């Protein structure tokens, strides 16, 4: 899981990229706390071939990436 809450872009995308490059997970949960990061991480994940499911966790955004 990548917990990028409290970070603004480009950090959440970079953290997601690092996790994908390191472990190439088939499923990955990314937590962010703002819509800008939510969109940017989702776009990035889709460009890496992941399917993205959007969910909320309280006031935060939960992205479930899978492929």
């Amino acid at each position, binding site marked *: 899981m990548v917990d990028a*809450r*409290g*970070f*603004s*872009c*480009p*950090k959440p*995308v*970079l*953290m997601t990229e690092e996790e994908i490059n390191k472990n190439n997970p088939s499923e990955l949960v990314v937590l962010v*706390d*703002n*819509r*800008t990061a939510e969109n940017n991480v989702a*776009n*990035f994940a*889709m*460009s890496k071939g992941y399917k993205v499911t959007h969910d909320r966790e309280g*006031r935060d955004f939960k992205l479930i990436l899978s492929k």
Partner: protein
Amino acid sequence: MKTKINPLIIITGIIIGVAAVALTAFGNPKNMGFCIACFIRDIAGTTKLHSAGVVQYLRPEIVGIVLGAFIMSLAGGEWRAKAGSSPALRFILGFMVMVGALIFLGCPLRMVIRMGGGDLNAFVGLAGFVVGILIGVVFLKKGFGLKRNYDVANLDGMVLPVVLVILFVLFFMAWPALSQYVADVKNGVEGAKNTTSFAISTSGPGSMHAPIFMALVIGLVVGALAQKSRMCMVGGIRDIVMFKNYNLILGFIGVFVAVLVGNIVLGNFKGFATQSQPIAHTDEIWNFLGMVIVGWGSALLGGCPLRQLILAGEGNGDSAVTVIGMLVGAAFAHNFALAGGADPGMVDGAYKAFKLSANGRLAAICCLIALLVISLTNLKGEEN
């Protein structure tokens, strides 16, 4: 990364460009329809944080931009009070971005507006800006990060909008007396006296401004659009380099094209040149280095001065601290003669150029060293 284009970013860029040309047509200084750095500097002047007489005015555009972002983020359910991400570092980064911008004479937004006005010095600035962002990106790729922010009390996220509104109301109440004083000075009335607590420019850029409510309303619209579209001058270039994402740069290009076309339509455009440009100088090495500081500092902060205003409107207390850092930086820049100045132009048949003061050069070098230290000491800081 495949670019998903958001048409709103292009619309926002064009509207900002048109608004900039309109504000200048209605009284703002040339090539300064918008300049976040210059306008914050003017606010520092009118509140007597510095005493440079020609740059003192409470720019309603700044109030409007922050308020527009505040209202739009509330309406869109995006407003959220957050703070606690390396506030002192952000303060000092805001301070340095302001010093760099005032050496060049403009924030990244004014740089683009100057480019659209035919000012070639701004293209030198752009080169520096890109270099600064590239340096910032190198450190971002190596893991540079300011710390995480956290949820805070709602009031914490409202500080900048509320303070700006209070300042604006006070300034507006003083405005009849202030404008009378300015008119008296301009008309050579003997014994003209400013009876208010605000300082006000009677000449120079600070005395040139569009009508107050027009500036406020345009600021509100721009703030709202910039909030929704994530408009950011630094983000445009950064995202191309880091993610091959061309979305944000379209806003940047939109501003340039709209300003260029607007200037041509209004007959303001006189071709591209370096000399005799409005509120600009030809001390190119410092134009370049000033914008290196702005690009680098803004890349570390995660956004240009405009974006910091927007984030402060969205409830980000750290961006509010950054803006206050810029305000204090502006005061220092003028109190210690660090800022750039316009070329005097043709004097006795020869072109007289502005040369940045020794203080200004020293400050620029200190800023570059400080940026390097901050960049190096915050690598891999994101795991906490």
